[in-house]
């Protein structure tokens, strides 16, 4: 096991390591990040007073809005001279958070991804096809450097061009693949159409993440490829893939607690809950230099898997993410907020700002239909005028969200009005798999 000592600390050892890092972190962000100095001062917290893991409860939270307000670099704790890379959360206009990495951050990240690969049984002899997108998205480059760090071979094919993906899978002696689960399914479906039996190829494991996926989908991928599927967890604000990962036991994501302090908090009171109880996942980055975050509220809902893992790692395991506490959607790997859609619709005069987003699966990919009411004042007598309106809405959404959606004009008054929180979203993506969830 890679980093066996770090991954197998006793609870007491872990607390000592985390407390020491947390103490230093508080001092560092107080001195280097305006956002935190203001928060500490506002709550009258002396950074020197944070000495134990338990003291974290007195620290302020960091939320996505803090990062947006800091756009692009204002929360960086290291000078730009030391920042060697930036990534950003999925490219949605106006909602982007930018994260910076020092060389030491990248080394740490590569190491943690290597731990995930190691846990999946990968060695320097393996050949990894990286089918995550390369770019501002952390998936591609994160897995790429982790693969190289392990000494394995990285094939930086990135996403898309599915036929070429299959050709490489077949011809390059690929033994492992990294991709979003939905893209893995598309690859499998395409291979079947082309008459390529993936099960006859040497590939034996896959690292899948960046979007929630069900156990039913896992079974489908494992069957189609003849591989063992491993979940990987991360978010760009905290690091990217590698914050947590699955081992062969497939019973939760081992969190790299020597670098991240995880808390599960009651969604109402924000008080810590016991292991095994669901709550909001909150992370503190203990070692990051570029943009360290204190108590970052992920909005992901999950729980700590109680008990010890048979693999020998003592790091606590986060159950696979089952829901979000706010309304952010992940559509084909892109973060989308219903409020962004609303904003676009408000700018299009020919439609009323009453809309509904219907998510479903078209094959392996997310299908998005935006239903919007026609403004009853608009001359609709000619179909071409309706098509023009549909295209205006479609183009406006595509440029604002960076994903293409189908737009369906509906009769005025047919979208249910609500006085409270509107039911803007109809998510049918996992409807057929609902029974499988734990």
């Amino acid at each position: 096991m890679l980093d066996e000592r770090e991954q197998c600390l006793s609870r007491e050892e872990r607390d000592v390591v985390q407390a020491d890092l947390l103490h230093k972190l508080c001092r560092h962000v107080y001195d280097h990040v305006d956002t935190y100095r203001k928060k500490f001062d506002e709550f009258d917290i002396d950074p020197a007073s944070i000495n134990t893991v338990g003291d974290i409860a007195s620290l302020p939270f960091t939320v996505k809005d803090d990062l947006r307000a800091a756009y692009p670099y204002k929360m960086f704790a290291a000078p730009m001279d030391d920042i060697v890379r930036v990534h950003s959360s999925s490219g949605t206009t106006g909602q982007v958070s930018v994260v910076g990495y020092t060389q030491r951050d990248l080394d740490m990240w590569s190491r943690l991804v290597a731990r995930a690969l190691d846990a999946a049984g990968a060695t320097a002899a393996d050949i990894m096809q990286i089918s995550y997108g390369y770019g501002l998205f952390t998936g591609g480059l994160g897995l790429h450097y982790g693969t190289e760090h392990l000494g394995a071979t990285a094939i930086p094919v990135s996403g898309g061009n599915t036929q070429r993906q299959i050709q490489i899978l077949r011809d390059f002696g690929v033994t492992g693949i990294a991709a979003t689960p939905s893209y893995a399914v598309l690859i499998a479906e395409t291979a079947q159409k082309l008459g390529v039996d993936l099960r006859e190829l040497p590939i034996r494991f896959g690292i899948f993440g960046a979007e929630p996926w069900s156990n039913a989908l896992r079974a489908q991928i494992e069957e189609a490829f003849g591989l063992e599927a491993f979940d990987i967890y991360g978010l760009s604000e905290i690091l990217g893939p590698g914050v947590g990962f699955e081992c062969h036991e497939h019973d939760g994501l081992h969190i790299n607690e020597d670098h991240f302090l995880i808390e599960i908090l009651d969604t109402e009171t924000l008080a810590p809950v016991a292991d095994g109880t669901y709550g909001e996942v909150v992370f503190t980055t203990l070692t990051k230099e570029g943009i360290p975050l204190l108590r970052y509220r992920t909005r992901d809902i999950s729980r700590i898997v109680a008990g010890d893992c048979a693999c020998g790692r003592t790091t606590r395991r986060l159950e696979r993410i089952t829901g979000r506490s706010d309304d952010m959607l992940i559509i084909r790997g892109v973060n989308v907020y219903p409020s962004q859609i609303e904003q676009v619709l408000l700018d299009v005069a020919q439609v009323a700002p009453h809309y509904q987003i219907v998510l479903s699966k078209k094959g392996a990919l997310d299908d998005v239909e935006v239903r919007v009411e026609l403004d009853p004042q608009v001359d609709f007598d000619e179909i071409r005028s309706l098509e023009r309106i549909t295209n205006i809405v479609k183009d406006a959404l595509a440029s604002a969200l960076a994903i293409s959606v189908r737009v369906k004009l509906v009769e005025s008054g047919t979208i249910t009005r609500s006085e409270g929180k509107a039911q803007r979203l109809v998510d049918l993506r996992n409807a057929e798999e609902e029974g499988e969830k734990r």
Partner: protein
Amino acid sequence: MKQLSVFLENAPGHLARMTRLLGEAGHNMYALMTADTADYGVVRVICDDPDAAAQTLRDRDITAQVHEVCAVAVPDRPGGLSDLLDTIAEASIDISYCYCFVHPSCSDAVTVFRLSDSEATVVLETAGYRIVELEDFNA
């Protein structure tokens, strides 16, 4: 001539509900034409009182409008319509849509056009065509 236009979702029961509402309110329809897409349709209706019919539907939250269209009497003989269409084409007038129907009060067929040119009726009348009005049916 005024035409009732209705925007409807392309789903079972929507057309039935619309026509039932018109029937219950005592509106008589002379012609009905649907233009459909996968998601929605536009229903165009020639009826005795389009303004009142539109209000009847709007009162029940159905998106309805009244538009001016051009209704032309077409000689009921082979080639009658193509002669008319030639006249329109020669005047470089675009036809957005058209549909034909017959009414017992009128020996000619009636062709309803939505045309690009508001002066189209003048062109057609000059060419000897008779413009049909709602009164011709309601008499």
